[in-house]
């Protein structure tokens, strides 16, 4: 009976219900877009760190997990390698410089990351090969570079570095391609640490005699589940370092937390607007139906039937709107290029859609209570 009444009413008033479903669809689109933007920005920021093939990151003490402020030298690396439970340690250095597109268009800011071939920090390639030697002008580029330049294995890319006041250009050979590994919103280029040290701004130039210094060390453990203990041991046995896992590291990236909380707030408010709009719509409907509901109760429909009917109706109409909005948004976002920071992953989409499905019942709660309180006596034009 509840289903019958709820769905018949929707079916016989398609226009009106379609309108509110359309509004829900728009709200869904908005919520999903914000979610996708949050996810896209977050991952553009943290991708490299998130995908690192090591459980722990080691920073210089007191640098508050800042990859730019931290300095880790050879000496520390050697100590780290001796800590029990550590399987491998790789030095990683970060810098930002410019990639000069061959077609003469504007330079692209890239994350230029120095890694030790074969050690944690070096990304796996899906085409070409890994970095081989400690020196040499070979690099691996990530999907972000490929998307912008159409780079292939064997291509030469040109990097521009400003050393002091003068500009220097370096030609490097692409030996491998890796998936998306953006760091700090920039596409990434990976070079052997020595090459990196030579090219990067304010680097050591020849670097022959000085200690090779990186920003951080990435540690892979023998037993990943022993993460906490090994981290503790490292901080106790190696001087002047602090240790963090990947999540802690990316959450400490500049602006990361602030950006995410801003977007979450926006998402919440959009959701809240949805609850109000849907709630308002059904409340107005309900108020217009008071006499009719009184009549239905008088002729023998239970409160239960009337209440369920309303909930079913609200849920159905809302779900329909959410479905339209979600399908539309998914279709739209799946066609965005890598360069746009909009990313709708299965889990974020699912979480948002589930939350949006709750808009109906949440918004409708007031009108259901109003419905339940209508007296059957209304049918006779009376009220107690």
């Amino acid at each position, binding site marked *: *009976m509840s289903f*019958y*009444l709820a769905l*018949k*009413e929707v079916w*016989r*008033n398609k226009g009106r219900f379609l309108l509110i479903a359309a509004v829900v669809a728009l709200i869904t689109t908005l919520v999903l877009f914000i979610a996708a933007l949050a996810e896209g920005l977050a991952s553009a920021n943290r991708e490299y760190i998130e995908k690192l093939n090591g459980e722990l990151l080691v920073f210089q003490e007191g640098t508050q997990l800042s990859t730019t402020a931290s300095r880790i030298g050879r000496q520390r690396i050697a100590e780290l390698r001796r800590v029990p439970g550590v399987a491998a340690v790789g030095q990683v250095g970060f810098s930002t410089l410019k990639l000069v597109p061959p077609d003469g268009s504007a330079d692209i800011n890239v994350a230029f990351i120095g890694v030790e071939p074969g050690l944690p920090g070096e990304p796996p390639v899906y085409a070409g090969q890994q970095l081989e030697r400690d020196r040499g002008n070979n690099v691996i580029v990530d999907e972000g570079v490929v998307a912008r330049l159409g780079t292939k294995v064997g291509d030469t890319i040109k990097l521009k570095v400003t050393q002091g006041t003068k500009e220097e250009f370096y030609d490097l050979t692409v030996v491998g391609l890796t998936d998306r590994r953006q760091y700090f919103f920039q596409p990434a280029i990976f070079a052997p640490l020595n090459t990196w040290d030579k090219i990067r701004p304010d680097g050591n130039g020849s670097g022959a005699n000085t200690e090779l210094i990186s920003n951080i060390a990435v540690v892979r453990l023998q037993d990943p589940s022993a993460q906490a203990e090994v981290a503790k041991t490292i901080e106790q046995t190696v001087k002047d370092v602090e240790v963090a896992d990947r999540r802690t590291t990316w959450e400490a990236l500049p602006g990361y937390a602030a950006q995410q909380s801003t977007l979450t707030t926006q998402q919440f408010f959009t959701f809240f607007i949805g609850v109000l709009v849907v709630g308002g719509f059904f409340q107005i409907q309900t108020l217009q139906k008071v*006499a*009719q509901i*009184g*009549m*239905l*109760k*008088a*002729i*023998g*429909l*239970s*409160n*239960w039937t009337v209440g369920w009917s309303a909930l079913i109706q609200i849920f159905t109409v809302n779900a329909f709107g959410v479905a339209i909005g979600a399908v539309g948004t998914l279709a739209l976002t799946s066609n965005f290029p890598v360069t746009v920071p909009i990313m709708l992953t299965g889990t974020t989409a699912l979480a948002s859609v589930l939350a949006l499905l709750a808009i109906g019942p949440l918004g409708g709660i007031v009108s259901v209570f109003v419905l339940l309180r209508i007296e*059957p*006596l209304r*049918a*006779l*034009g*009376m009220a*107690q």
Partner: protein
Amino acid sequence: MIALEAINVTKIYGTGTNAVTAVNDVSLSVRRGEFVALVGPSGSGKTTMLAMLAGLLKPTHGQIIIAEKDIGRMSESKRTKFRGQYIGFAFQANNLVPFLNAQENVELLLRLNGKLNRQSRESARNLLERLGLGERLKNRPGQLSGGQQQRVAIARALIHEPEVVLADEPTASLDTERAHQVVQTFAELIHEQNRAGIMVTHDLRMCKYTDRVIQMMDGRINRIIADRREILRLAGAADELDGHVVPVNGKPVLAGDPLADVRGI
């Protein structure tokens, strides 16, 4: 056989100094196959009485017995179910579900009682045809005239074979001719199907289709007219006055009014 009985029923609205005794110690009974008119001036307690007979309002004192059950003692949800099964309703307004067509509106009561099947659908259609709505089965209330809507309401009030059929001013929004048609068919069906019918009305002309006229006044039964000739005389007198029949607000219109005693002047 007695279908409905009210025993010393009293309804007091409010408490203390605000208390209004709308119905005061009224007893009445209606047999199966009997159609009763409930008349009286405005504020005399007709609607209150009807609401109690319908199980929509609990009497302050007294008992209402329908199909041998005391409905005043039932819980709210029991009474709701009871109404759906044992009582048929035709109201003054807002009778029908606007998004259901004529046939679906009638079938609603079958559906409610789990009696919707081919056979009962067929009888719903027959009943509507009998009421002259054979061409209007698929029309929604908005596409029907007031009289047609009221006839659909009558079909709905009868389709589930209730013990008691109640109508609250079913002709209030109809012109004279339609009013006669509607009440006449209503009376016919009540007699044919052997239901106990009660109709509250201001229009004394409609009494000629009923078997008994109960006049209320100040919450009490003032007079009962059961004699056929008396009823026809009353309805005839009302008919002669035609336009001057007791207006809805119930104020007397003419001096030396032959209906004065019925109106309670």
